[in-house]
């Protein structure tokens, strides 16, 4: 039997397994394609602490120098730090060397434009065309530029956060915070930021060695050690980052994960209180966010799924805050990127400002129950599944920009084909868990029936 192919080249970058599909030859070609696309100029590169990171970095440097670029190498740091530095240095773009939450054997390149945003789908397609055509800019030795290494990138990131959000007020009781950085890119900068904000920090998994102490996604089931540490240390809050420190999850003072959907909700609660304005999220985000926006009389805009779609809409609407339900908080006053560091600062400010515990804060807005399920479905049947949903639920309000989302009286559900696997995802949210489950089950059966027909 053939091995399952691991290489994935798409508009969100190139991703593969080290020692197998993600070879240095492939990486250097991608770097050349990107260097050719953005032209000669300064590019920022940074990486997460995966074991293959050095190899990947050298392959990328070789390709970028060959294409005539100048490189600012900011070392091991969160992806949002790379994005911040691109804008700070007015660079032509950047490359983040990280496979975010994928397991240790993976690595990937993510391409960043001059605004510090991931390449839009249109730009990414143009870059991929150059990659496939293979006709890269190659400068002569005498025209080649160099690599400048800098270690101050994360300090600059902290500085930018404190400039906008200030340290926590010293008059208040010091917050006790436990941070689980997953031995990832946030391992060093995370505790440093929390200290600078004025919190008492207890850190776990902060050795950036590329060895994963837990699965990298900050899902409730992966946070047992953090929950325990919060209780043991009688902390006010626990934070969990993923490997590249863009996503953030919160554990309450009772040692319970609040669910990564509520990271953005808490952050928005503080951000909108500080300064009301438009909010942007994708259409699978919890309705709690809508409730919060309503509370502050702010408009909420829902986009297709994908970080790029959210950031593009945020720019268009001049949003105050935005993000995704997976723990990605985007706060443009500091950084136009999913940024766990910014997320932590916003939520700690919320705690000191309200003087409330996390558990109590969750009681101040309506909360919903969200359930997710996936159904195996041949790619060629996805369209007929979606058509069936549109027909059968025509009586309700429907949003079909990305799959089909149906607004029911007691909640909503979303049916959507995966971009990467032959499956259909079904997500349902309602006020109670029972309602959500009923909603999900009814849709689940319809989809199953449609596929077997």
């Amino acid at each position, binding site marked *: 039997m053939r091995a399952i192919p691991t290489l994935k080249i798409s508009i969100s970058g190139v991703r593969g397994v*080290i020692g197998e599909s993600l070879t240095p030859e492939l990486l*250097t070609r991608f770097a050349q394609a990107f260097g050719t696309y953005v032209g000669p100029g300064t590019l920022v590169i940074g990486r997460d602490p995966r074991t293959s990171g050095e190899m990947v970095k050298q392959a990328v440097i070789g390709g970028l120098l060959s294409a005539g670029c100048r490189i600012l190498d900011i070392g091991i740091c969160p992806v949002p730090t790379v994005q911040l530095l691109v804008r700070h240095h007015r660079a032509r773009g950047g490359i983040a060397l990280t496979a975010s939450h994928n397991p240790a054997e993976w690595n990937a390149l993510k391409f960043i434009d001059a605004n510090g945003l991931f390449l839009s789908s249109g730009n990414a397609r143009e870059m991929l065309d150059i990659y496939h055509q293979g006709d890269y800019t190659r400068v002569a030795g005498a025209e080649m530029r160099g690599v400048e290494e800098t270690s101050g990138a994360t300090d600059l990131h902290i500085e930018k956060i404190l400039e906008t959000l200030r340290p926590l007020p010293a008059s208040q009781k010091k917050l006790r915070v436990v941070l689980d950085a997953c031995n990832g890119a946030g391992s060093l900068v995370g505790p440093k930021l929390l200290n600078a904000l004025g919190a008492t920090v207890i850190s776990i998994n902060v050795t950036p060695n590329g060895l994963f102490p837990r699965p990298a996604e900050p899902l409730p089931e992966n946070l047992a050690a953090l929950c325990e540490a919060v209780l043991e240390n009688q902390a006010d809050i626990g934070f969990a980052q993923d490997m590249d420190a863009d996503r953030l999850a919160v554990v309450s003072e009772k040692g319970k994960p609040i669910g990564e959907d509520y990271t953005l909700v808490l952050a928005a609660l503080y951000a909108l209180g500080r300064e009301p304005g438009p909010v942007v999220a994708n259409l699978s985000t919890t309705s709690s966010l809508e409730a919060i926006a309503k509370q502050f009389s702010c408009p909420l805009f829902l986009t297709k799924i994908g970080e790029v779609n959210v950031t593009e809409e945020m720019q268009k609407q001049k949003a105050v805050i935005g993000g995704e339900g997976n723990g990605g908080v985007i706060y443009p006053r500091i950084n136009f990127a999913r940024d766990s560091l910014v997320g932590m600062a916003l939520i700690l400010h919320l705690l000191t400002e309200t003087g409330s515990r996390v558990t109590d804060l969750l009681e101040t807005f309506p909360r919903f129950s969200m359930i997710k399920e996936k159904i195996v479905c041949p790619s060629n049947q996805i369209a007929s599944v979606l058509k069936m949903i549109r027909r059968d639920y025509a009586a309700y309000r429907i949003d079909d920009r990305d799959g089909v989302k149906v607004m029911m009286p007691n909640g909503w559900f979303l049916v959507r084909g995966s971009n990467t696997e032959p499956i259909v995802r079904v997500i349902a949210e309602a006020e109670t868990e029972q309602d959500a489950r009923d909603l999900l089950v009814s849709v689940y059966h319809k989809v199953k029936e449609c596929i077997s027909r």
Partner: protein
Amino acid sequence: MKPLKIGITGVRGIVGETLTPEVVIAFSGAFGTYMEGGRILVGRDTRASGPMVRAAVMAGLLASGCEVIDLGICPTPSLQLAVSWLSANGGISITAGHNPVPWNALKFVRSDGLYLNSMQGEELLDIFHQGDFTRATWDRICREIQYQDPIEHHIERLKHVFDVEAIKARGLKVAVDCCNGACSRLIPRWLQELGCEVLAINNDLASPFPHSPEPKPETMAQLSAVVKAGHADIGFAHDADGERLGIVTESGQPLSEELTLAMAARIRLACKPGTVVTNVSTSSAIDRIAAEFGGAVVRTQVGQAYISEAIIEHNAILGGEGSGGVTVPEVQLTHDSAAAAGLILEGLALAGRRVSEVVQELPSLAMIKRNLAVEPNRLYSMLQAFRMAVEREGLTCDLTDGIRVVLQDGWIHVRASNTESMIRLIVEADNATDANRLADWARDRLTNQARGW
């Protein structure tokens, strides 16, 4: 013509055209595979394309499971000495030696510090062409690059071999032209250790080559002026990576590069009789000097690996080539311009003589070197046609390397260059008239296709 030369001496090409990061990565991956991982040293000369090639080499080596030590900018012989010092498995020197600025190349060094021999070179090429390289998985790949400086160790070795006190006692004034190459880090320091007053020019690592990095009379005008203006006792010219040495006398006369080995041989044989190893295209002055002192000469194919192996086989006291490369076996079994300079200074100091006096005792011969650029696919057919033409006239061809013909008043050597797509013609006779006549004779027989001499 696209100049990429993949041969047993390594891979060499023009950056921005043929020597792409992909080719460099693949060759380094093949070398890492061939050496079966382990510790590999990497050094480079000062070419502006060095950082690009270095990054690509690092990526290829790391991906194939090697542990890498970066020696930074250093002469190739410094790297070769460091292989055993650092218990390494081999090394890659990134340098196109005496080739012009647009070129770069990889030279492959094995675990004893010598270049791969022709059979090993073939094995490496087979792996390169098959493209089936060892790929380290995430849990095996080396996480970081280490750094070492080999210069101090090289100087210590040199100090052990030569009579430092005798040279110091002479208080020599030495002018040196490092061509802004890797020798800038070694030679001025080494000469200071020898108590010389050093007049160094072109020893700035960050500047481009001020002239062709091939030490020949036509590139030594600046050095000659410094020798005269500074009243130096001798002038030394170095190539970009510390293999070849050119000499200027105290009167400012630049010597033919053929005389470097001749002078070293005379100094050496005068105090230590034995065998001298050189290649088939080097001046027969060596034979006359050896005869004078009762020594023997062994001739090999052109290329350092052949010289090194013959030195071992014949337990020789000296090796070298007409290009200005000299091997002093007590230092190491490979060309080393620092060792050659040490040998010559020691000889001058011990004999209490001036360099022009030694030159006068060397046999005076006339040599002509001509190069003919030929398309790669015609190189060997032209050589074959030449051989047939010569043999039809009843002459015997020595086929050790290319075609060498001994005639009554001199000899002719015709061969394909190892490093560039050209035919090299070398002729030597007692005087210039005879030499020109022999060169014309050879030209006529290199078929009428050969135009543009």
